[in-house]
C-alpha cells in the first residue's frame, strides 16, 4: 500500500484528486489537509510516500512547507497557474498538474511516480528548496522556521542581520535569534540586495540597521548596528559596504 496525502485549501480540488485516485487501489489517501500547518503535521505523522501539494495556501505556501521537512516525500504539485511552479518542477518534483487537469494527465503523473525508483524520489531537501526559492517571490519576503513543533514566520523586514554558524545560519531579529539549516550564500543571493549587504564571509547585514562604521585595525573596519552589536567588516566587504551606503 502506498500512503498518499492531499494538501489543498479548496475542498473541491481535493475531491477531484480523491476521485481520480479511485482507479489506483494501491494508493491510499491517509489524510486530507486544508493548509500548510495541517499538512506539515500530517506528513510528520504519517510519513507518506506521495504528497499532492497546492502552492497558494493559508499561512504558509507549499514551497515553505517543503522547506520545513527533513525528508522529502515524492511531490506532485497541483496548482492553477504558476510559472514558478513550472520552474520548480523542472528542478525536482515528480510532476506538476495544472488545474484543471483531466484524468489522463493525472494518470500519467501517477505512472511517473510509480515507475520512478525510490532513490530518485528522495532528493536532498536542500536542493529542491534552493531551486524553488530562487524563483519564488513570496519566499524572499519572509523566512519560515521550525521551532520544535511550532512554525515561526519571520518577515525579512524584522531581521537585523544574519550570521553563519557551521551548517546553519543564525537569523537575528528584535525578538531573538533563530537557527535555520541554510547557507549564508543562499540568503545573500535571494534576499533583496537593496536591503542586505554581505560585509564579511560570515555576516550579512540589513542596511538600514547600520549606525556607525569605525576603523578597527589596519585594513579592517567594525560596523555598529542600531542594536549596539558590533560586526566585523572584511577587506572585500568594505568596498561593497561603501557602495551600498554611497560613501
Amino acid at each position, binding site marked *: 500500500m502506498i500512503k498518499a496525502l492531499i494538501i489543498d485549501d*479548496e475542498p*473541491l480540488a481535493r475531491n477531484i484528486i480523491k476521485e481520480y485516485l479511485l482507479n489506483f487501489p494501491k494508493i491510499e489517501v491517509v489524510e486530507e489537509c*486544508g493548509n500548510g500547518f495541517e499538512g506539515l503535521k500530517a506528513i510528520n505523522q504519517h510519513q507518506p510516500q506521495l504528497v499532492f501539494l497546492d502552492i497558494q495556501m493559508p*499561512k*504558509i505556501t507549499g514551497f515553505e512547507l517543503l522547506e520545513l521537512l527533513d525528508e522529502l516525500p515524492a511531490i506532485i504539485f497541483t496548482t492553477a*497557474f504558476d510559472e514558478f511552479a513550472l520552474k520548480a518542477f523542472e528542478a525536482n518534483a515528480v510532476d506538476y498538474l495544472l488545474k*484543471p487537469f483531466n484524468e489522463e494527465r493525472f494518470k500519467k503523473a501517477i505512472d511517473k511516480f510509480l515507475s520512478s525508483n525510490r532513490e530518485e524520489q528522495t532528493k536532498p531537501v536542500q536542493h529542491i528548496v534552493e531551486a524553488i526559492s530562487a524563483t519564488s517571490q513570496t519566499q524572499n519576503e519572509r523566512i519560515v522556521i521550525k521551532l520544535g513543533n511550532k512554525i515561526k514566520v519571520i518577515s525579512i523586514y524584522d531581521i537585523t542581520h544574519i550570521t553563519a554558524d557551521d551548517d546553519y545560519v543564525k537569523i537575528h531579529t528584535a525578538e531573538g535569534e533563530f537557527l535555520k539549516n541554510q547557507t549564508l550564500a543562499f540568503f545573500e543571493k535571494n534576499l533583496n540586495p537593496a536591503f542586505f549587504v554581505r560585509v564579511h564571509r560570515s555576516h550579512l547585514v540589513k542596511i538600514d540597521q547600520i549606525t556607525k562604521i569605525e576603523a578597527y585595525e589596519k585594513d579592517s573596519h567594525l560596523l555598529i548596528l542600531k542594536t549596539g552589536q558590533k560586526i566585523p567588516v572584511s577587506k572585500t566587504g568594505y568596498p561593497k559596504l561603501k557602495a551600498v551606503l554611497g560613501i
Partner: protein
Amino acid sequence: MTASPLSNSKFKWVFLFLVAVFTAFQYYTLTLFHIDNRTAINDSIIANILLALCCWLISNSLSYYQPKGYKYLFVIVWCKVLAGIYVYALILIFDNIALYNGDNHFFLQLSLPVRFMFALLFIGSMATISILWYTQEENNEFARRKNESDKLTKEIELSSLREKLQPHFLFNSLNSISALTITQPKEARKMVHQLSDFLRGTLRKDDTLTALKTEFQHLELYLDIEKVRFGNRLNTQISADDTVLSKTLPPMLLQPLVENAIKFGLYDTLDEVTINISAISQHRYLQITITNPFDPQTSHTNKGTGFGLSSTQRRLQLIYNRTDLLTTEKRDGKFISILKIPQI
C-alpha cells in the same frame, strides 16, 4: 504646411480694409503735394494693390518655411529685397503708363525712399504677424496631438487596470466545476452560469459610471463562485440601504479590493473568514468600506499594498485626479479599505 493667416476669413477682411484705408491715406497725402486727382487715384490704387500682393507673397512663403533661431535674419533680408522689387516694379509700371510727367516725375523719384520705407514697414509687419501666427498654429497642433495621445494612453491604462482579472481565479473555478461534475452535476451547471455571467460583466469596455446596485450584483456572482471554491471557510456580509444603492461609481472598481480582501483574509488565517462590505452616503461621497481579518505576523501585506490596492489607487487618480480617495488601515487584526467616490 499650416494655413496662411490670409486664408482666415476674418483676417482677410481686416487686411482688405487696411489696404483700403492706406489707399485713401495715400491719395490724401498725394493731393497735399498738389498731385492731380487722376494721378493720385491711380498711384494709390496701383501702389497699394502691389503692396498687398507683396504682403500676401511673404505671408505665403513663410507658411512653407518657418525660420528658427538666427535664421530670422534671412526674413529681414527677404523683406528688404521684396520692398526693393516693389519700388522697382512701381517705377516700371508708372513709366509704362506714363503716370508721372515732367515735374511730377521728379516728385516720383523723390518719393521713392519714402515708398521703400513704407513698403518695408508693411512687409515686415506682415512677416512678423505671419511668423507669430504659424508658431501659434504649430503649438496648438502640438498641444492637440499631445492631448489626444495622453487621452489614448489614459484609456489604455484604464482598460488594462479594469481588465486585470486574476488568472488564478479562472483556473481554480474551472477546477471546482470539473470536480462538481462528478458528484453534483446540477451545482456544476449553476457554477458555469455564474462564471459566465461574471465574465460577461468583466468584459465591459466603457468606463461610464454604474449604479452601486449593479456593481453589488456583479460582486455577488464573484463571491458566490469563491464560496463554492472555499466551502464554508468564506462568509461575506454586504450591507447598504436602499438610498445608497442608487449612487454611482466606476465599473469593476470594487472587484480588485474584494479580491484582495479574500486573498489576504483566506491566506492569513486558518479559521472561517468573514469579509464585510458596507456602503454609506456621506456628504457628497459614496463611502464603501471593505474589511477582512489578517494576521500581522504572517501577512504578505506588511510590505504595503497589494496589486489590488495600487491598481485601484491608480484608477481613481486617472478618473478623478485625486490620490486621497482610497485609504487603508489596520486595526484589531482587521484590514480595512475605505473607498470614497465623489457624487456629482
